[in-house]
């Protein structure tokens, strides 16, 4: 996938000036609450809440998560390559906000890690108050799960683990730990610099600010775009040179849902009727000549392969779901079996992987019900059936 970058604020490469320190723990937390910043890594958890929980704990830790295991996402790598300093500023400011003495940057090997490491070298002897250790994220789908991130920072295999206590209470080595997606940290830096009112200037009143969207698939100019939360999907597609004939888009990535390529807003509220959310900001336009069921079967097989294999229901259930989805895509009707299998893996894992896979499969069955019926009768609406 060829990617181009379109600068606005987050992806601006210009010098950003000194770190706008807030003068002690806690102060920035109030600003984050007023700003209404939510996590940009997928779950959309309020950023201030994590900080507020960790604040006051013993020796808190902050981790910048740039793992980006989702194959359709390029925004974390693009951000780190284009403007690593805004992420590192956000990391320092979050460390100040929660009184952290340790900070980590978790990122896969490659150009994003190289850019971040170069930026850290540039900052040496500058204004940073905590040193930042770079930890390499393995290239797999579940590497970015919070419990996997914590395991990696602790020096263990980056695999999801069973946790009953939230990370901001007890994370890395039992310390209160705030894990933020790298884009979330970039927004933290922007809020510290420009204030909560500036952040709220765009987006929607309930979901303010901008986000980095990765647009791919049937578009002329795939790439990463900084856009307001709530932007209509068709408008976002037009920015990326959307091609005629796209009716449906995959929103939120392989754990996401299908939505029409129309005026649906890219926000939690806008995507709720489709059972999804903007997630990590992914929009993938399904080509008009691509069979949605075959495409979905490919994704499901990938997700099954990406199971860490630690949890029985995921280890056994995902391959069964993938095989059934494949059968469905070649005209052997297995929709009922698929519904039964998805019920067997939901909520039954240490991480979100089985639930995310189920969300995608269920959305496929609902969105492409007509295609499922057509395949049952031996034909495919786009003629991809053998």
């Amino acid at each position, binding site marked *: 996938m060829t990617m181009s970058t379109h600068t606005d604020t987050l992806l601006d490469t210009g010098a950003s000036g000194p770190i706008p320190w807030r003068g002690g723990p806690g102060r920035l937390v109030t600003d984050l609450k007023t700003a209404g910043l939510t*996590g940009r*890594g*997928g*779950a959309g*958890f309020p950023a201030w809440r*994590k900080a507020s929980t960790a604040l006051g704990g013993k020796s808190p830790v902050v*981790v910048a*998560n740039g793992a980006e295991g989702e194959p359709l996402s390029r925004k974390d790598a693009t951000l780190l390559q284009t403007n690593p300093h805004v992420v590192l500023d956000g990391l320092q400011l979050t460390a100040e906000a929660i009184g952290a003495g340790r900070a980590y940057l978790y990122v896969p090997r490659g150009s994003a890690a190289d850019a971040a490491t170069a930026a850290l070298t540039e900052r040496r002897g500058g204004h940073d108050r905590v040193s930042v250790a770079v930890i390499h994220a393995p290239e797999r789908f579940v590497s*970015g*799960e*919070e419990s996997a*991130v914590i395991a990696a920072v602790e020096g263990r295999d980056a695999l*999801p*683990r*069973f946790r*009953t206590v*939230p*990370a*901001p209470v007890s994370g890395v080595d039992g310390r209160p730990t705030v*894990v*933020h*997606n790298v884009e*979330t940290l970039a927004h933290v830096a922007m809020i510290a610099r420009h204030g909560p009112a500036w952040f709220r200037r765009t987006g929607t009143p309930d979901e303010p600010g901008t986000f980095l969207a990765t647009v791919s698939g049937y578009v002329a100019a795939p790439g990463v775009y900084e856009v307001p939360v709530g932007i209509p999907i068709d408008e976002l597609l037009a920015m990326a040179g959307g091609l005629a004939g796209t009716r449906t888009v995959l929103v939120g990535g392989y754990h996401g849902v299908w939505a029409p390529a129309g005026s649906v807003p890219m926000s939690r509220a806008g995507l709720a009727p489709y059972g999804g959310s903007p997630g990590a900001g992914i929009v993938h336009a399904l080509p008009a000549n691509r069979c949605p069921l075959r495409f979905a079967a490919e994704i499901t097989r990938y997700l099954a392969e990406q199971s860490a294999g*630690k*949890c*029985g*229901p*995921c280890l*056994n*259930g995902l391959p069964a779901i993938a095989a059934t989805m494949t059968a469905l895509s070649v005209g052997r009707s297995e929709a009922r079996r698929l519904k039964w299998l998805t*019920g*067997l893996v*939901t*909520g*039954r*894992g*240490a991480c*979100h992987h089985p639930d995310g896979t189920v969300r995608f499969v269920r959305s496929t069955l609902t969105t492409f019900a007509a295609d499922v019926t057509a395949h049952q009768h031996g034909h495919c609406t786009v003629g991809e059936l053998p």
Partner: protein
Amino acid sequence: MTARLHVDWTACDGRGLCVELLPEVLERDPWGYPIPHKPGPIEVPDHLVPHAQKAAGLCPLLALRLRQSAAPGPEQRVRS
């Protein structure tokens, strides 16, 4: 207050002891792992709490935790 059983799926190997001790609540899924009769969180009625405690204590892989949860509802999952 409701009691809930939490399974550490990274530890559970599907030995099945919990299913034998708590047939009122649990059955085996097609791969042998414990699953509640009613989909969702594993809620344990008061009169079965002693059995659930026993199941948690006897699990050979220490994969079960019995917890009192104040407000029943969907588990909050935190992801950055």
